């Protein structure tokens, strides 16, 4: 009897601690998101720093050099690209009201859709009203994001710091953590750490490389076709490309939307769709088999569930991080299982 009471108490205590941890995680979820992103960036940049060390730099010089180049790129991109885009977006909102040209545009689009999809002929699409609704809700959330400026500034300060120190001292940090492991498990953990580094590094760099190539291809294609914001669309498409099925479709949709809003022709829309189809073909047939490790093949259903969970707890960033994080969890589980198996089969 005493025993069961003790067990129940223990169980309750464990549950309480877990709940407290969960609550804590939820409360600092934005900080966790920042740290996870920083760690991912540091991880992807690590081979570059190692290569610079090979070239004769010390770790600090290597990290600082990478950091300077990266900062210049990000700031340059933001300075040259964001202001005109914000101006454009605001102009759109103003133009969007009951302007006749906009009305004409939407009638044109509706006609195009009805002509292309026969069974919609007798339906009232009300595209303009819906677009207006969408725009107002989008701008509302934009304002909300702007009001959250403080957290954005915090992110802009914390993240570079975190990336810098994780890149510079990542190995030292790992060594110090490993030094805490008791002698009995020390070699096992050391070996596990090395395998995780190899596997995770390979997986994350593969994902990054694939996304980067898709982004560059998309940006080039959009530039050739004369679509505005080609670079932005490219980055967006590259990031979303990690999400199977939905991702590539979203990238293409954004491009089509931009073309529509800028009053592009039907031919241009078709060209954009064809361009994205070709990029997807290249990605699926050439990039994925080359770049992504087969062992980290995630089931699409698992990916979708992971994205929903990520979105639930960590917002849009969580959705984007869901795929690499799920891949990491899979790699970690497989490696831990293999290592324990190896050490048990004595």
């Amino acid at each position: 009897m005493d025993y069961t009471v003790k067990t129940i108490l223990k169980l309750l205590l464990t549950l309480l601690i877990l709940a407290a941890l969960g609550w804590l995680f939820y409360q600092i979820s934005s900080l966790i998101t920042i740290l996870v992103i920083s760690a991912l960036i540091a991880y992807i940049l690590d081979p570059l720093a190692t290569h610079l060390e090979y070239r004769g730099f010390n770790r600090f010089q290597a990290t600082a050099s990478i950091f300077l180049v990266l900062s210049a790129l990000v700031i340059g991109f933001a300075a040259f690209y964001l202001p005109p885009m914000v101006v454009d977006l605001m102009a759109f909102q103003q133009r969007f009201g009951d302007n006749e040209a906009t009305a004409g545009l939407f009638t044109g689009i509706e006609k195009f859709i009805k002509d292309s999809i026969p069974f919609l002929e007798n339906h009232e699409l009300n595209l303009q009203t819906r677009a207006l609704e969408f725009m107002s809700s989008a701008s509302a959330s934009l304002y909300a994001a702007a009001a959250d400026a403080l957290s954005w500034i915090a992110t802009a300060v914390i993240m570079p710091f975190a990336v810098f120190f994780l890149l510079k001292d990542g190995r030292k940090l790992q060594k110090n953590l490993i030094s805490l492991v008791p002698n009995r498990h020390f070699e096992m953990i050391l070996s596990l750490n090395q395998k995780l580094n190899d596997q995770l590094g390979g997986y994350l760099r593969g994902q990054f490389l694939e996304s980067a190539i898709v982004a560059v291809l998309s940006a080039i294609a959009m530039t050739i076709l004369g679509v505005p914001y080609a670079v932005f669309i490219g980055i967006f498409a590259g990031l979303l490309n990690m999400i199977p099925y939905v991702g590539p479709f979203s990238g293409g949709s954004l491009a089509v939307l931009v073309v529509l809003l800028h009053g592009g022709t039907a031919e241009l829309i078709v060209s954009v769709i064809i361009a994205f189809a070709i990029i997807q073909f290249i990605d699926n047939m050439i990039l994925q088999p080359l770049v992504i490790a087969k062992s980290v093949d995630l089931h699409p259903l698992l990916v979708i569930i992971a994205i929903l969970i990520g979105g639930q707890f960590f917002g849009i960033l969580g959705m984007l991080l869901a795929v690499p994080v799920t891949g990491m969890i899979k790699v970690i589980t497989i490696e831990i299982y293999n290592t324990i198996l190896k050490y048990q089969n004595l």
Partner: protein
Amino acid sequence: MAEDLFWSNIFRRVEKTELSTRDVLKTVPIFSDLTKRELKYLERILHKRTYRADEVVFRENEPGVGMYIIVSGKVNILLGKEHKLLALLSKGDFFGEMALLLESPRTATAQATEATELMGFFQPDLFHLLETRPKTGNKILHRLAQMLAERLKQLNIENRQLKLRLTQFTAESGTTR
């Protein structure tokens, strides 16, 4: 005045122990080609581990990932379930270096016989060294290869002698029959 002495004493002691660790490293054959600077860097990446008396460093048949150097204390190398003593190693000795090149099961058990301080040098450290400081890494690798070649040579001689004795033995037993 007394305080001054106190501080200078501590300082001297720290300097002395640091020097001794590096001296120990210098005596290890695979590090003997390294410059002072390289040894200093190596010291930073090595893993310092302390063991109580009778604590096991690694067990026979466990997968091994690297070697250990004895900074202070003593380590027994034991074989089989009956723990047959193969060697008693002390300060400056090293063991497990084969695992640096080949991640294979340990061929014996290592156990500290007294409070012991070891420096661990493992495969990931060697690979990292080869990536970031290839010159240093290659010096170690070269020494390691020399050591293995030397051991192979000795084993070869021993093998030849044994074969010779075996043929002599079979010839002798043939004539006596």
